[in-house]
């Protein structure tokens, strides 16, 4: 197993609330790892712990280790901005900025200080192509991103992440605001992106997890109950609680 991210003994508190309890998990490079579980089980919190988005929340405290390429992202001297460039994130609702398509995709690069418009144009085109959006938008890069249909907005958000050239892409229920056809497109895109990126996805949708993920992790009340190859988790769960959830007896 070629490990991209190794999580060891991770505990996370929101004030007094113990949101993640001694979580251990290995995320393999260039595979899709799905985090599943009922609402409030901590799967989104775990995902956000991987690029330290939880830092933005007041009173959030983390202990334990998250090794990215062997380096603890919670260690001293870690540059959080650089970390977030390596570990990108796609959110639940498509959330483009109220800017043009072009400016949305180039945002991360411009923040990083890239001013050369030829380089920006090139990366914008490449990112949009890799998010399967280029053909739809190449003639209207200057129009507002908010005018795109929802599924294209979500793929724009993917392109925006791709533009900063991450190694890992975190997806927090990326299809929950989309209809089935748009969902299928995003799933297909994820399978394509897996060839070059390590992907971790939070999903409520069992079918989605079984369709696209290589590994699945079942969480309940902040604990990692079971982790394994997706087919094993879905066809032959070892833990009774996982089985109850998968078969719909719970959650």
């Amino acid at each position, binding site marked *: 197993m070629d490990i991209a991210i190794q999580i060891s003994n991770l505990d996370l508190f929101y004030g007094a609330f113990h949101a993640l309890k001694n979580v251990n998990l290995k995320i393999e490079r260039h595979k899709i790892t799905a985090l599943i579980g009922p609402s409030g089980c901590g799967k989104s919190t775990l995902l956000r712990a991987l690029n330290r*988005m939880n830092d933005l929340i007041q009173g959030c405290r983390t202990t334990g280790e998250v090794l990215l390429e062997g380096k603890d992202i919670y260690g001293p001297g870690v540059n959080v901005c650089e970390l*977030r460039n390596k570990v990108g994130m796609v959110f639940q609702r498509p959330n483009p900025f*109220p800017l043009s398509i072009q400016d949305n995709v180039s945002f991360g690069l411009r923040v990083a200080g890239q001013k050369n418009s030829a380089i920006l144009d090139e990366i914008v085109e490449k990112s949009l192509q890799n998010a399967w959006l280029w053909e739809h938008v190449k003639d209207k890069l200057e129009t507002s991103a908010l005018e795109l249909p929802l599924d294209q907005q979500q793929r724009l958000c993917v392109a925006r992440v791709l533009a900063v050239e991450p190694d890992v892409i975190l997806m927090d229920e990326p299809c929950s605001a989309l209809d089935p056809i748009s969902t299928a497109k995003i799933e297909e895109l994820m399978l394509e992106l897996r060839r070059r990126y390590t992907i971790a996805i939070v999903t409520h949708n069992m079918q989605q997890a079984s369709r696209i993920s290589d590994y699945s992790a079942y969480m309940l009340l902040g604990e990692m109950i079971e982790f394994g190859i997706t087919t094993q988790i879905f066809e032959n769960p070892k833990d009774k609680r996982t089985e109850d959830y998968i078969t719909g007896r719970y959650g």
Partner: protein
Amino acid sequence: MRIPPRNTQALAVALLGGATGLTLAILVFVIVFILGKGLPVLSLGFLLDNPQEMGKAGGIFPTLVGTLILPLAAIIIALPAGVGTAVYLSEYTVENPATRIIRFGTDCLAGIPSIIFGLFGFIFFVTTLKMGWCILSGALTLAIMVLPTIIRTSEEAIKAVPASYREVSCSLGATRWETVLKVVLPNALPGIVTGVMLSIGRCIGETAAVIFTAGASLRLPHSVFDSTRTMAVHFYILAREGISNENAFGTAAVLILSVLLVNSVSYWMMHRFISRRTK
């Protein structure tokens, strides 16, 4: 006795419509009344000539300049301080007793009558700091006066920027400051401009605080260390001392027209900015 819902609905529409109509009617009446008395006095000469006999004859040119410079200088001083405070309060601190005290303080400051600010400016800038009656004393005083407005409107505008924008910005590797600069402030701009507009309006219309600090000199100012007279002060003195009612109304008409002009131009600029950002 119970009134049927259909009737209360009709009653509500009538009352609310009446309130709106009354407000509009009063506004239109005031404007038409002043413009009706003032517009006949207006001419190019009235705008561009120096006043004679304390304003009984001649034009109002120096007061036009004073009205332009004083609010402008006040906003130049108040804007960075006010927006900076608003950004600090909303982006860099969490709700705690200290921020609540700051907010309560700015709210109290907003409710203080302008003449108190004038008195403060007179005692502090004009006499203690020996700056004398001058544009700088006036601008500093007016800046303090409008600071609460700018802070609160900016803060509300900044709070109205969706949290998801900040989240995305951070997730793309932006620091908090870059997020403020590239995401928060551009999206808060319309609200901030509204606060600035309100503040400019207050500065243009202010008399008490201006007389105390910038003086009422009718000579054309050459630097910020000269005294000046704004149109509002000129109008006050012309009317109060019975120098010339015609010229007082003429000045008032110019005052109203310039406020309308400032408002229209800044709204036009704001819409241009927004539509250019998201064409």
